[in-house]
């Protein structure tokens, strides 16, 4: 039994007119403890929806999520999310944002211990000196550092990263990815991340789960990334294996785009033709 099991989860959205739209179907994904698994797919394949289902923020239409032997269908402190749009509380300072999470996770701690602990995480993400600033006064990169600190500080069983670097400028992105790698190496958290960024996925992950395009997206393939850790960005980017995996993933993403007849404007499932579907692994 794996640490985190996504068991044949499907998600349908009901549309106007009583129709149901299948976002993804029968996704089966097993993640081992301390594994870093990333899901890559086009927009609309439902990867963020899947992440929200694991987080308990959305309910699956079919199937279940099992964490450490227990089914989870509501949010909990054992799963923390780092959001694409940071989701910091704008009326609280950096320090207060992290402390809110720490107090929630470790309610029995005394104030002194909580404060020391929060300060440690503030320092860890390099935000010492900015504790009293509100998120609005920070750059996107700094905000996401707060987001990472908040998530790691709770010490969840699973970290869920929802395109965490998508809204950060390209120059800062690399630095924060390195920081995430460093923090992950220190804690060996189990991580499930979704992203558009293929290089990011290869650099950070042990496994990459490839989704076909939606609607009715499916988990098509799992690519293993076996580079030794700790990884150094510059070294990994130069590896021939890196280029090979990147090519493979990009080809997959290119080929799974569905084509519609040129004159067809409907979005019904029948109008969509799969040009090539990679056989789903059992």
């Amino acid at each position, binding site marked *: 039994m794996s640490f985190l099991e996504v068991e044949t989860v499907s998600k349908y959205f009901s549309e106007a007119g009583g129709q149901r739209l299948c976002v993804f179907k029968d996704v089966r994904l097993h993640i081992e403890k301390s594994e870093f698994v990333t899901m890559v797919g086009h927009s609309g394949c439902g990867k963020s929806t899947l992440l929200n289902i694991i987080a308990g923020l959305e309910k699956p239409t079919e199937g279940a999520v099992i964490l450490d032997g227990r089914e989870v269908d509501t949010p909990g402190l054992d799963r923390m999310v780092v959001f694409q749009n940071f989701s910091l509380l704008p009326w609280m300072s950096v320090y207060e944002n992290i402390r809110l999470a720490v107090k929630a996770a470790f309610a029995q701690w005394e104030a002194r211990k909580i404060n020391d602990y929060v300060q440690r995480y503030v320092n860890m993400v390099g935000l010492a000196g900015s504790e009293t600033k509100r998120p*609005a006064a920070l750059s996107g990169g700094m905000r996401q550092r707060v987001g990472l600190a908040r998530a790691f500080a709770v010490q969840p069983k699973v970290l869920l990263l929802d395109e965490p670097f998508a809204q950060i400028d390209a120059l800062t992105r690399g630095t924060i990815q390195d920081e995430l790698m460093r923090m992950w190496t220190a804690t060996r958290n189990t991580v499930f991340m979704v992203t558009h960024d293929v290089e990011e996925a290869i650099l950070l992950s042990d496994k990459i789960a490839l989704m076909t395009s939606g609607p009715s997206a499916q988990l098509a393939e799992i690519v293993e990334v076996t580079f030794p850790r700790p990884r150094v960005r510059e070294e990994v980017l130069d590896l021939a294996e890196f280029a090979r995996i990147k090519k493979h993933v990009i080809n997959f993403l290119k080929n799974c785009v569905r084509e519609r007849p040129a004159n067809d404007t409907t979005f019904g499932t029948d109008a969509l033709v799969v040009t090539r579907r990679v056989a789903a692994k059992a």
Partner: protein
Amino acid sequence: MDQIAVMSERKKSIISSVALLTIFLAVWQLSVKTPAPGAKAEGLPGPMAVASRAWEMVSDPFYNNGPNDKGIGIQLGYSVGRLLIGYTAAALVAISLGVMLGLSPGFYRALNPYIQVLKPISPLAWMPLFLYTIKDSSQSAVMVIFMSSLWPILANTAFGVAGIKRDYLNVSALLQLSWFKRLWKVILPAAAPAIVAGLRISIGSAWVAIVAAEMLIGGTGIGYFVWNEWNNLQLTSVIFAILMTGFVGLLLDTGFGSLAKTLTYKE
């Protein structure tokens, strides 16, 4: 725009304000017939007469010579006291109910028709019912304040809470905050700008209503004072009291203005 330009803009508007006031006072003074010595004054009193009466009243605001002769400070005190009681009660009820409405769309839809009917009723229209049920004129006035403050706070709170970004509620769900912490750390701060806007609107309308209510109930308060002085044909006092209600209203509004500033957040 640079600092100097801003300063001179501000200076210009201050100068214009003072000039307008001077012109207004001059026209007022000139249009008033100065009564012959010993003769009874006719028409409106002039600004000089109002000013001298104002000075008299302000220099001894807290004298008390029985029910019909109290200092302006005492009268304003009664009015502000009633305002605070009715307003605080309304704020507590409206914010609690507004949070509930904002969090449950079904409840909101169910109650909304009634709110829409009750909202446009003049708070003074309730007065006979209050007098009949409460049988105390001062408490009835407080209830009028309650009714006048209730709707703007309720509507704004419900609107503000219903519009809280999903992200903030997600964070509170992930952190498994207790309902109390959820309320104090997430919902109320998130909706605070809207709630304070409602508080600010309603303190203004409550202050407007209290003057009218006190004219009806009599006894004490700035509204009663205005009416009583009118009965005494003391127009200088009436004019000064009107100005004082405006001044107190301004103070109340400024207070909420600065509260709004501290509670607003940038995303």
